[in-house]
């Protein structure tokens, strides 16, 4: 066995990592969007936070998966606009 062969035989972890990344990208697409709700909530929060102070709990995202259609429900409880805008400016 050559030295190169010997080394590449031992370092199998990088191969494992690459195979997993490819496989899981595929499986996540098949089994549904992992964390989609969480990602949406974070991003919506971030967009609102650019313009006004808002508490995390005030943004609720709900995903209902049906057989033929799915619905996405986004519920944002707005703070007192004048107050929040003032807080964000400071």
């Amino acid at each position, binding site marked *: 066995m050559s030295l190169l062969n010997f080394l590449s035989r*031992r*370092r*199998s*972890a*990088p191969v*494992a*990592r690459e*195979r*997993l*990344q490819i*496989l*899981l990208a595929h*499986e*996540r697409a098949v*089994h*549904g969007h*992992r*964390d*989609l*709700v*969480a990602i949406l*909530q974070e991003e919506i929060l971030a967009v609102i936070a650019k313009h006004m102070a808002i508490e995390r709990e005030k943004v*609720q*995202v*709900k*995903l209902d*998966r049906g057989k033929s259609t799915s619905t996405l*429900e986004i*519920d944002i409880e707005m703070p007192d606009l004048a107050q929040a805008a003032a807080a964000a400016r400071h």
Partner: protein
Amino acid sequence: MAKILVVTSGKGGVGKTTSTASLGAALAQSGQRVVVVDFDVGLRNLDLVMGAERRVVFDLINVVQGDAKLAQALIRDKRVDTLSLLPASQTRDKDALTEEGVAKVLAELREKFDWIICDSPAGIEKGATLAMYNADAAVVVTNPEVSSVRDSDRIIGLLDSKTKRAEKGERMEKHLLLTRYDTARAARGEMLKTDDVLEILSIPLLGIIPESEEVLRASNIGAPITLSNPASAAGRAYFDAAKRLRGEDIPMTVPVERRGLMGKLFGRRVA
């Protein structure tokens, strides 16, 4: 407020039962009121790992079906008095557990304990989804190995869709517990590294439990490792993970075995 924690993984044999017992004991040792609940109906093992197998009279299914009161089924640990066990049934089949029945028992447990730790069966079927359904947080137990990582990814997907929290549009708190970790082999590139697993699964790390003979020894004698050998590498790793669960900010390390004089003389612990 009581917190329901599910210890889950998809794959079997990765260390869920060991971790339920060790985290539960570690939290109880710090004064928290803890109950560990075995959801592995038909294949119960938590009683054995906790050293309570001869004290089981009633189980979770008896309580769910109203054949026993919760207080009759709970087994108080003889070493730590804030620690209790609710065993699974060994004989009944898992269809005896219903979603409503489980929810009722968990609600009752919430009154009595600070932590309710549910040891999930392997798989992604009913048993596993029942164990996770009411949870506030999840510990995803993963070994640094391809099939375990893949199954954990699948379980994370279920935690984000098949739980009460997910259905209500609330966020499920998820923690990665990397177990049976061999630092030397990871460094040689023979085993996935912590960073590889973290990058792939992208949930926060709760702890790294080293592969250790002491874990086997602990289960042989029926004592969680945080009780039988708190100074061992795995014992310390579980204590750190329990502190992180309580919100403490502990630097992440992989503890290594400290060798005392006897250990140096004989090369290994005399069991």
